[in-house]
């Protein structure tokens, strides 16, 4: 299509140059109504009709669901400014929830139910499929299929407020076996802290009330306002695609996420004494 467009552009340019520069006798044939009839009516009509039919056929191939295929169903909810991801079983019940990351099996269709909790967002993994809006009050269905294992970046493409630029996520395509293993692990409770330091971190996490907004399955922290943290240590990024998940970044985020990503919903905990945010951060980082 791009090549076709370039050819048409060249044609127009060549004709213009010819009309401008050729000798009056030779270019005379161009200066008549016939030029308009052929160049301006017949030619576009044919190309445009052909292109339309081609486009429609391509679109039909994309939107028609393959019948009888075993699809993985996932619900993705856009939030200011992150992604809530819920894996569903065949009956549409929520198996477990995670955030800012979509794991998908290679070679199998994943059916995403897209919606929004606040304003309009748009879901886009350029390498896997076109984009589809997430509109409050509506659910849009997008079918994805990764043919190769790998990590693909995605980003919100509908302007959704002050941090629209920092609302990214990762789609992780895994081979079938790895995917099944991941699914088993991801649906279970969080790992138990191995050391006393980590246990102390979990204690502070719970005591300080982080569970009001965040959930860590198996600990009693069951908040639903913020991202689920059950396996945050294993994720590709912190802050919806902003930075790698390290204990330092987590501590900085806890202390003042409003400085890192102004306008997100997490209040700053800069009043915590030295070491406390770090302890929590180390605990979270251990959740793999």
């Amino acid at each position, binding site marked *: *299509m*791009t090549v076709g*467009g370039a050819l*048409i*552009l060249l044609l*127009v*340019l060549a004709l*213009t140059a010819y*009309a*401008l520069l*050729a000798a009056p006798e030779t270019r*005379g044939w*161009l*200066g*008549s*109504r016939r*030029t*308009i*009839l052929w*160049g*301006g*009516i017949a030619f*576009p009509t044919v190309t*445009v*009709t052909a*292109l*339309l039919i081609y*486009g*429609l056929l*391509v*679109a039909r191939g*994309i939107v028609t669901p393959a019948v009888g295929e075993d699809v993985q169903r996932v619900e993705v909810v856009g939030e200011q400014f992150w992604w809530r991801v819920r894996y569903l079983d065949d009956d549409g019940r929520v198996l477990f929830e995670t955030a800012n990351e979509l794991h998908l099996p290679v070679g199998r269709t994943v059916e995403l139910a*897209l919606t929004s909790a606040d*304003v*309009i967002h*748009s879901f*886009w993994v*350029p390498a896997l*499929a*076109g*984009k*589809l*809006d997430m*509109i*409050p*009050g*509506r659910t*849009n*269905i997008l079918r994805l299929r990764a043919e190769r294992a790998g990590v693909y*970046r995605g980003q*919100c*493409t*509908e*302007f*959704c*407020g*002050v941090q*629209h*630029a920092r609302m990214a996520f990762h789609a992780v395509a895994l081979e079938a076996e790895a995917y099944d293993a991941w699914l088993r692990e991801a649906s279970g409770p969080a790992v138990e802290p191995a050391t006393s330091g980590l246990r102390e971190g979990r204690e502070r996490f719970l005591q300080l009330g982080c569970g009001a907004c965040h959930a860590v399955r198996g600990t009693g922290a069951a908040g639903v306002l913020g991202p689920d943290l059950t396996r945050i240590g294993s994720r590709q990024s912190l802050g919806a*695609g902003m930075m790698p998940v390290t204990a330092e970044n987590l501590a900085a985020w806890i202390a003042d996420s409003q400085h890192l990503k102004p306008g997100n919903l997490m209040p700053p905990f800069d009043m915590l004494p030295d070491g406390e945010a770090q302890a929590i951060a180390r605990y979270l980082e251990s959740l793999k």
Partner: protein
Amino acid sequence: MSFPNPTPRPEGELEQLKRIWRPPSGLGFLTVVNNTYIGLFYVGAAVMFFVLAGILALIMRTQLAVPDNDLVSDGLYNQLFTMHGTMMMFLFAVPAVEAMGVYLLPNMLAARDLPFPRLSAFAFWAYLIGGSVFFLSIFWGLAPDGGWFMYPPLTSIEYSPADNADFWLLGIGFIEISAIAGAIEIVCGVLLTRAPGMSLDKMPVYAWAMLVFAGMIIFAFPAVILATLLLELERAFGWPFFIPGQGGDPLLWQHLFWFFGHPEVYIIFLPAAGMVSMIVPTIAQKPLVGYRLVVLAVIGTGVLSFGLWVHHMFATGLPQLSLSFFSAASMAVAIPSGIQIFAWIATIASGKVRLTTPSLFILGFLFIFTIGGLTGVMVAMVPFDWQAHDTYFIVAHLHYVLIGGMVFPLFAAFYYWVPVASRRALSEKVGRWVFGLMFVGVNVAFFPMHITGLIGMPRRVSTYPADLGWGDLNMVSTIGAYLIGAGVLLFLIDVARNFRITSADNAGNVWNAPTLEWLPNDNYATRSIPIVASRDPLWDQPGLAEDVEAGRYYLPNAPTGYRETIVTSPVTAEPRYIVQIPGPGWFHVLAAAFTAACFLLLTVKLVTPAIICGVLAVFFVLAWAWQLDPGPTHPPVDIGGGLKLPVYKTGSGSHSWWATICFLLVAGTTFLCMIFSYLFLWLSNVGDWPPAGTALPALSWASGSAALYLASALLAWGASRTLAAGRLWTSQGLLLLGALPALCGALGVDGWGFWQAGLRPQDHAYGAAVYTILCLTGVFAFTLAIFTPFLTLRAAFGRLDTARRASFDVGLLLFYYTAGQALVGLLLTHGFPRAVG
């Protein structure tokens, strides 16, 4: 050849013309209405907003030049891109082309002025004041930050609680009103004030383009006016049109916005294409090839562009089949564009082009716009758009279309038409540099964005991470943006050095152009109004300039002693009557200032001062209207060639009738959009309409109301008949004591019916829609409640009688229309729920 006025003109006639048309001096210059001045101010203001919005763009490009930049905060960046888009669309593009129309059309059609010069002055002042305050809001951090498309729920009160969004809604709503005023002016100007003999098939393509442009404004802008009204109702009073939990639907906004927004692109492009069709024949020194096909293309683009709006919504999850209709229409609209491009190529081929600055800009336009058009066809393909939508590919596409399709033709037009308005032409040497910088700049800035978009960079991001490899392309784009800035700066310097505004001793027909704006002119436009016998009169009618200047054609004088021009018939352009045009005055200026003040004060929630300003604005509008409708002040006058024309006309041939009809088309389209909104909301709430627990009022309320509406229309008809029969006071009685109370009563009965049934607008989108339909009728009832006593007052002061009834006819049309609209509303609000439920 025999002229209408072959004999030499008497002494003193020219001085009288000059005196009558002279603009006031000193502070009174603010009251000037001549299109040659208002048009220039208007163009100047549009260029000012272009430069300001361009500066905002440069700040954005600087922010994006490198990854992870923090030159501006995320919040400020969002204000910047919102303001850039909004200002370029609403404060530059539409006003600029409208301004060029105000300036050029009368000259091109050989009219002395537009038929409603105070209306265009009003539109200008409202635009200048409203636009300036709107721009200044960014210095208080109050500039809108929801994108120029303002999608709810991001712009709803919950997610945008501050006044920023209100600045957009009220500020832009207000500027839209100014644009519509200008559009009505242009429709009446093009259809009614053409030179005798300039039948539709001899009309300059630019006039065709402006006619279609104005018609498109009349049918497209109501959608966005309604949308802004609905969103403001939701923000201010909690009427939930766009809140899903209460029956609203965010997609309703998108439909309404893009039903305006897509035609908007062609609203901007068509006048520019019209200019190109004027300039190309001149630079080729040959008539336009395929005039009829180009006219067809202009009309066809205007109509087909109304079938494209959903192609901005391909990613919203609508059914594939629905999307495809719009894909098809988007492809269809390529054909008229193809016609125009090949018509220009053919014209160039038929002549010999000199590479002057206007020619360069035309060639640059052909190149850039063709790329924009081709990428446009690409994004019209649904699967491609799913990738490209809301990425920098679209940014590239739309700038190629808008800069190529509008800015380059506008600059060509500046260089081309400046000799009409200035003592000196602009510098050819500097002009080439301006062109070079802008042409290279546009391509350097925007071509890489196609790639940036295709590799995944979304639009409207305040920054981007370094590791994605988007940095280099962005840096190139930023450099290009500064090149464009340098070009524009050079242009401004050229203007400052060479542009010397003049009304009499302009630079003259430097390009040997064929159309009438190049006739010798002054504040009174041309000395006499020529008879046109060809599409290119200055080429085909030798000596026309001298004969016009010698006063050998029609109306070489001012026989009634006032400003006047000839009204001709819309199709064949035969002289019909002489219209006396109002001159300078303060009322329209004050009306504009207080209207602007009213809207802006409402924005910052200063309700009491806003109401005071609103009342003052109404007062000044009425004071202005008081001076209109002069009546048959003068016996029919001889304009030459034995042609005796009346100086006043009422009924469907009069210019006030045409203007009122245009206004009612705007109103009717607004109402149609509301019907669409009602049905759309129903479709979002199928099976729950009206929502459970809401009762419909008994049919007796509807029938009672309908009977009263009919009665009001009948009484108004009776008033018209009795007025024609000479019974002035019976007529006034019927209107003021019969039709008006019946109308208000009907509205009251309808509204009370819903209210006593328990319906409240805040509860559910259903109630909100019903009461909005009532409000749209209420606006007219309110207008008539002011206008009817105004008519009675005119009657009492002898300004209204059997012959002098143009203002009465305006009121009459309003009564008919209101009753009609209300009856349709009754049918919808009472009938539809019963039909589906």
